[in-house]
């Protein structure tokens, strides 16, 4: 896909600096999607190259040059979104330049162009560190009642987002529907954590409200312990392929009895308390 000349120019340093990447191949007609894939591939080449040079600083640039397209197909790129590697780019303008014959090269200018090169960010978002400090932490106080089928409310529920676009502390009140072997009534303080199945850099506060499905276990005499696992899908119609948060929780509870319960939880909203 990437022409040999383009690869040589990138690797030789011609692409260094702010905004010039060139291509010297690929004269075939491409569909819009193939063009987007090609551009995403170039972004990755660019990122890999800058990392190879050991430049750990964050870089931004807002324009670049792509390969050869027909005049008609290049104009179709306006308004399209590049979604690849660790960046997201909305193309807002495309400039055509004749590349010889019936082919044209394009220069595109976009918004919010971002190459993630910060090594500390890479470490922070690595699976190893995420295993120690999860993407999401929470503490909640509430109560549940029921026999076979029951419900409850956890109005005091604080969630800390440690990663993503909007890290911070949020108030996230939630309501539960429980089914299974339930203790008649119990109050609890729970500590929870969760990791996003996708790229943690894309987490935002809009991912806090919504549905959660889980399984809880609690053993209580007067004061006891409880624990549970749950999953919070982004899209209920594609719960696993669409991604979501895998959660765990432990807590202490007051009440009476032993319970094994399935739980549906709805988090009504996320009000920011402090963001950083």
């Amino acid at each position, binding site marked *: 896909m990437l022409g040999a000349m383009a690869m040589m120019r990138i690797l030789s340093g011609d692409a260094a600096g702010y905004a010039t990447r060139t291509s010297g191949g690929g004269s075939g007609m491409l569909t819009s999607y193939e063009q987007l894939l090609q551009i995403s591939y170039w972004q990755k080449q660019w990122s890999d190259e800058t990392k190879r040079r050991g430049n750990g600083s964050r870089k931004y640039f807002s324009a670049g040059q792509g390969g050869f397209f027909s005049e008609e197909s290049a104009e179709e790129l306006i308004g399209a979104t590049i979604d690849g590697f660790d960046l997201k780019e909305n193309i807002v303008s495309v400039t055509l330049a004749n590349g010889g014959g019936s082919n044209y090269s394009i220069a595109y200018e976009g918004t919010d162009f971002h190459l993630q090169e910060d090594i500390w960010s890479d470490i922070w978002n690595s699976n190893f560190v995420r295993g120690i400090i999860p993407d999401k932490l929470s503490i909640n106080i509430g109560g549940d009642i029921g026999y076979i089928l029951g419900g409850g409310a956890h109005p005091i529920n604080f969630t800390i987002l440690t990663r993503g676009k909007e890290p911070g502390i949020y108030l996230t009140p939630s309501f539960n529907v429980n089914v299974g*072997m339930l203790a008649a009534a119990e109050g609890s303080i729970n500590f929870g954590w969760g990791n996003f199945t996708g790229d943690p850099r894309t987490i935002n506060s809009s991912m*806090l409200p919504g*549905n959660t*499905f889980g399984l809880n276990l609690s053993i209580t005499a007067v004061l006891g312990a409880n624990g549970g696992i749950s999953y919070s899908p982004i899209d*209920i*119609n*594609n719960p*696993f392929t669409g991604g*979501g948060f895998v959660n765990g929780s432990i807590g202490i509870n007051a009440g009476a009895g032993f319970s094994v319960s399935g739980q549906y939880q709805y988090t009504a909203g996320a009000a920011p308390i402090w963001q950083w």
Partner: protein
Amino acid sequence: MAKSKILTIVKISAAFIPLLILVYMHFRGQRIAKEFYEKEFSATVVNFSNWQGRSTDFYLNNKITLNFSNPVDGEIEIGDSIRKSSNTYIYSIYRKQTEGSFELIGTYDYRKRK
């Protein structure tokens, strides 16, 4: 078997209902995705629902639903035209301009999060 033991088994089994719902929705989603892949259509966004919280469903006039992660910042709106060829997950969103022409707003993959 004592009646109480049967009741206990029923109660514990019931605890797995939420997880079974997730598994059911997964396979249902796979079937719908396959139907989406095969279809060729040109349709219009007629409604939306964001009850899920984390994402918003956009309903097309041909009964197909497109899901976008929140926040949805103008990537898709009511009235947009959706066009898709058969045997692909890729679809394009066009928006009517004031002069009556349609402008390409974005190209998306049904399987990937916005």
